[in-house]
């Protein structure tokens, strides 16, 4: 079991760029040890200057976005490398929800596996949310409700987003994906036994050498 996810309420930061890739989200310099501080590494290439000092113009270095819990971005968020540390970096920084019109396939899968909500917003909603965020730049506190699929702005305006049920329900319940699959352990073994009888060479060959 992991922590069930129902809603997140907090500051929403906006990064209105398309194709924000996982190398940008967590640069390789933060992938060199098993115990790296991924939260510090989040957007490390853009967040720090060559001497390692915070760049004051980078959104997540500025109040109130230093404590952002929600990130609004454009198309194809999370493209590139499969590194799940991109998700861990967002989570360890404090971001629990990314809203974008589309996500790259592997990042999308990784997000839900690690407990990050990746919500799909249509382009019109993205534009409206971006406008809303600039109107409320002083206190851009939004509430994202996963079961209801709603985003509430500080002025009470509501917006919708989408998450397929197949991904939302396990997040809401806090399911462990491996436990869920192991409920089918008998079927997995039955498949393997049949496949092994049909094409023993496929499995035997891997074990030789």
């Amino acid at each position, binding site marked *: 079991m992991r922590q069930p996810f129902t809603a997140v309420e907090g500051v929403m930061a906006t990064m209105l*760029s*398309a*194709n924000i*890739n996982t*190398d*940008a989200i967590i*640069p*390789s*310099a933060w*992938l*060199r*040890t*098993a115990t790296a501080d991924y939260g510090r590494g989040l957007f490390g*290439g853009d967040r720090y200057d*060559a001497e390692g000092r915070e760049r004051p113009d980078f959104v997540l270095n500025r109040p109130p976005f230093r404590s952002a819990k929600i990130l609004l971005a*454009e*198309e*194809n968020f999370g*493209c*590139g*490398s*499969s*590194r*799940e*540390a991109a*998700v861990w970096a967002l989570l360890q920084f404090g971001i629990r929800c990314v809203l974008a019109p*589309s996500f*790259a*396939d*592997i990042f999308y*899968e*990784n997000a839900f*596996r*690690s407990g990050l909500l990746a919500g799909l917003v249509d382009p019109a909603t993205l534009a409206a949310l971006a406008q809303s965020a600039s109107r409320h730049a002083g206190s851009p506190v939004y509430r994202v409700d996963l079961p209801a699929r709603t985003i509430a702005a500080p002025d009470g305006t509501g917006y919708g987003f989408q998450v397929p*049920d*197949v991904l939302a*329900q396990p997040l809401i319940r806090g399911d*462990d*994906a*491996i436990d*869920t*699959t*192991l409920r*089918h*352990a008998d*079927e*997995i073994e039955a*498949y*393997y036994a049949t*496949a092994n009888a049909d*094409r*023993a*060479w*496929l*499995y*035997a*060959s*891997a*074990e030789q*050498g």
Partner: protein
Amino acid sequence: MTGESHGAALLTLFEKIWTSHLIRRLDDGRDLIFVDRHVLQETTSAPAFEGLRRADRAVRHPGLTVATQDHIVSTAPGRTEDTNPTGRELLGLMRRNAHENRIRHFGAGDPRQGIVHVIGPELGLALPGCILACGDSHTSTVGGLGAIGIGVGTSEVEHVLATQTLAMARPRRMRVRFEGRAGEGVTAKDLILRVIGEHGIAAGRGCAVEYAGAAIEALPVEARLTLCNMSIELGARFGLVAPDETAIDYVRGREFAPKGEAFEQAARLWRALRTDDGAEFDQEVAIDCSRVAPQVTWGTSPQDVAGVDELVPDPATFADARRRDLAAAALRYMELEPGTPLDSIPIDIAFIGSCTNSRLSDLEAAAAVARGRRVAPGVRALVVPGSMAVKAEAEARGLDRVFHDAGFEWRDAGCSMCVSINEDVVPPGARCIATSNRNFENRQGPRSRTHLASPAMAAAAALSGRIADVRKMRPA
């Protein structure tokens, strides 16, 4: 592995392989599929083993699992696990986790060590019609043999370790048809870069891509591996080419491939693995190979690509406003002016390697250009074979002498300057022509600038000191 049967639905190659691995359709609509091979590398697996330990779970099929060290391992000639001190922790964890879980480990010092996507096919672990998972986005590479390669994150690595399965939504079907004949100097790398350039880095999102057409059937397996490798740069998690006699001949005799009668039995099944005539695709695109020049990227996304005989584009010429902004930002980062001939751009580093282009044929193509010439003054040129087996075979053919004599470094196998997790880093501000797959900002090191190209093009640039059209290189 279903063959064709009359009256049955017409299926794509991908669907045939997928269906033959289907354990069950889950209640939520996803498919639970069996994973025949699982390949591990040191930078995405340690937390997965930690997760298993915490939950007191075992590795379900250690015999179907292999591990190597490729990402952070040093590529200095004669390196050990200790050569790059920063990498010691993750390298040690890979070795220890493999050992404790009875998983075969081909680490530094083992003649079978190499980049996951190079050793999978090379050792006969990746077979036509199989499903292979690996914690790396370029796992689609093995699609070049007609296997389904699935690139996964660390949670899914743990899931495969614990269950030997993945629960996944069935992807949509996409086909890219390659028509016409590619000209001189145009490689699989150029063809896939052109497809990405024309259709964009999200064209294949949610899709399994089949690469088809006479031009693909004519490609040797290593070129097909290069083609399928960059499926993720097209946005697709899966890419594959139908296995044929070329693929079957490639597999024959490899260390972990079936042998004797078992091989013949397997080959009969592999021959049936092709998309049925009339099978439907959700999306189809075509490319005329005869119009493709050697490609080189000018920006910070693989879709920012053009023929080497073209100019750095003017962002204003892009019809889409968002693309215009991205292109302008890319040129600022790359410090390039619109209208600059691509073949005039000076380079500091040439990197020949990575899971995209580090196989024997890639090194031969680079050596054919380098033979009898010298790397331009001030240029650092590296050749990093994809595996120690590739290195040994290249040395048996004398390629190491060609590279040494020309002034290239001849290194040990690893991911090296593609991902720059180890010590092979492009210095700030330096410009590198690379045979790898990603030209993102900071990818090869902070403030590095990357131009993606084929091995022959990278060699030509190393010798010229600037990006050069390999078709115009006079014989040495």
